[in-house]
């Protein structure tokens, strides 16, 4: 699987469900990491994993959730694709693979610094020129709040005019009742947030 496909995969797919991108030569190792005895190994941090593994948490609360994480093999190489993600160490990585290679899991609720022209959307960032962040808020103590980069409607694209307003979204767009801007340090992005309603499957 190529890195380009990985970027595409960040659209339409929720952070909660996407899992690690399968990158380069790591694809063969990208299944569930196994311990030497062949079983999945639980972890609370990287110390519990082998040197070529990282601790992946589900949900992605960086070890703060009630469930233990799982040791997974880190990628051995990554493509040079820019699709920024927020790591559990607060650092923005160029892409998910780079974070995994550094043995860093993704922070499902974000918390990293802003990236110009990329709108923070859970653990990921949405390209404000082409996408917006759709959020379905959880109603249980831990995520599955889902954050998804969705394609921008034509009228919302920056080249359609200088003023950006939530009115550019067609009526009936999901989650439009709570629409706002995401600051990026340059061109802001949009978020559309749903609360109290079921996320379509």
């Amino acid at each position, binding site marked *: 699987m190529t890195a380009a496909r990985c970027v595409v995969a960040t659209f339409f797919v929720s952070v909660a469900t996407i899992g690690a991108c399968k990158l380069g030569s790591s694809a063969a190792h990208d299944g569930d990491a196994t311990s030497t005895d062949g079983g999945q190994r639980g972890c609370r941090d990287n110390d519990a994993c082998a040197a070529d593994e990282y601790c992946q948490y589900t949900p992605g609360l960086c070890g703060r959730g009630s469930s233990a994480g799982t040791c997974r093999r880190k990628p051995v190489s990554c493509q040079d694709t820019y699709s920024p993600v927020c790591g559990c160490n607060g650092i923005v990585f160029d892409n998910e693979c780079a974070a995994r290679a550094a043995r860093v899991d993704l922070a499902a609720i974000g918390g990293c610094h802003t990236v110009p022209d990329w709108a923070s959307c859970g653990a990921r960032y949405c390209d404000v020129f082409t996408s917006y962040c759709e959020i379905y808020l959880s*109603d*249980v103590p831990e995520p599955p709040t889902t954050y998804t980069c969705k394609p921008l409607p034509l009228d919302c694209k920056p080249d359609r005019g200088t003023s950006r307003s939530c009115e550019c979204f067609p009526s009936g767009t999901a989650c439009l009742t709570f629409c706002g801007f995401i600051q990026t340090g340059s061109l802001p992005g949009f978020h559309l947030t749903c609360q109290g309603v079921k996320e379509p499957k």
Partner: protein
Amino acid sequence: MRLRLSPAIGLAAFLGVTAAATRAQAQCCSGYTLATACSGVPLTKARWCIQNSAPTGQAALPPAFCDYGEKVVSTLETVFNIKATGVFEFELDTQTGGAHTGTACNGFGAGVAYDAFVGSAYGATGFWGYLLSLHEAINVWTGMSSSGWPTDWWADHQSAFPNLMDFRIMNTIGTSNNDQNLLRAGVAQKGRFYPGGDSADPKVVALDNVYMAMPNGDGFAGFSQMFALQSGDGVKWDSLGVPNPDVKRSEYVVGFMSLAAKQLVLKLLQGPGANGGGNICNNTPDGTPGDQPYTCSEANINAIATAHCAIAANGKQTAHLASLRSGNYASVPSGPCGSTCPSECACDAANHCVAYWLGAPNDGGTDAGVDAGTGGTRGDAATDIGSAGGGGVAGGGSGGRAGASGATADASTGTGGAGGTIDSGRGGASGATADAATTGGGGTGTGGTSGTGGAGAGVTGGGAGTPGNAGTGGKPAGDTGSNSGCGCRAFGRDRSEPRAAISLVALVMAAMALARTRARR
């Protein structure tokens, strides 16, 4: 007689409140700063922290939220019967649009995007801030209570209960603070889920109908009782040995809900009920692939609730509790009627302790009726009209089931509905009752055909209703507004704990108001 407090006691009380307030204002997580908008507000249960990188800085939090957070915590403690484990930290995050439980430093609290607190939606300023901070706090308490609630109608995939709590708590705090903006927000949030709303959901309406059917129309106390009964039996939904969702899991939840309501609420959930409420437990697909629709069994729910009663009546034996907890309620032996039969239960004709609604009417004994009709449902908004009250259960040996309650309306222009009619008790005469409307027009009770008229009783104050017409014969009128019951019920435990908890909250609020007054001085 006027009480005089010594200066020492007054000083001690003041210092106590101040110290507690200082605790609440303790350190925020790294990268966050205490909201200056709340610096003059003595907070003991919650604090507000703004992420340093928030573009609007300290202006992100309107002052009205300071006290709101405090009351959110107090209310959730009461509803869930679970005390906060510390000061609840509300964080305003720079990240936009989201919300989550837990703080930035893995603490007790929740985070909401800063942009939720400004701007208007649905005619209320800061609508999303009120809603999301409350909603995340509810999620925290939900997690502290029990996991495994039915995903097809309670929470997780379908969010009926959290959505219900959202608008009910917003309305309650808005009323308490006389905050018209918050009241508008609460009405709007309710409107989203009622017919015609942008997120209309019959399940939310169905649970709201149950909320209003709780004893005395007090849904908070009712659900609090439900959580207490479940916790008291040590029942955890995920220990029932069934998947989620599943019919048995739902029947258990409905069973405990019915015990708290002292009536079988299955039909309210199945619908169609008031305002179209329903679609729970009635074989309606929930829309999630793989979830199979099912219909809950009234007989099973009765058996689950009666198993709870029998276990209590038998002294809560470990083996019996284990059976109930593992889903094997059918193996719980029946329990005797007597002093150990709790107030959510009653005695049947065979003298067994059973679910309250399965209890046999009394046969014309000599006890006076003591249980007035339960409160009618209450409308929320100023223009709402309270719907008809549910039938009250008249206690007393002379009456069987009796008296319906008058409907009520919260707001000043609301109009109370008419009181219902009564059912005559078997053998003896039943006392007719009519609860008054809380405010607005009073409900009119209808006398029993063969009972003694009972006086109307307000649920939460306000204008008195018209007393029920006197019937003929029977025993003297029963007391109104109390909750004890028939033969078995008379021996039962009084449901005073929730009231005590609410009183305690009121006391704390009064102390805070006093401290605030002092601070202003």
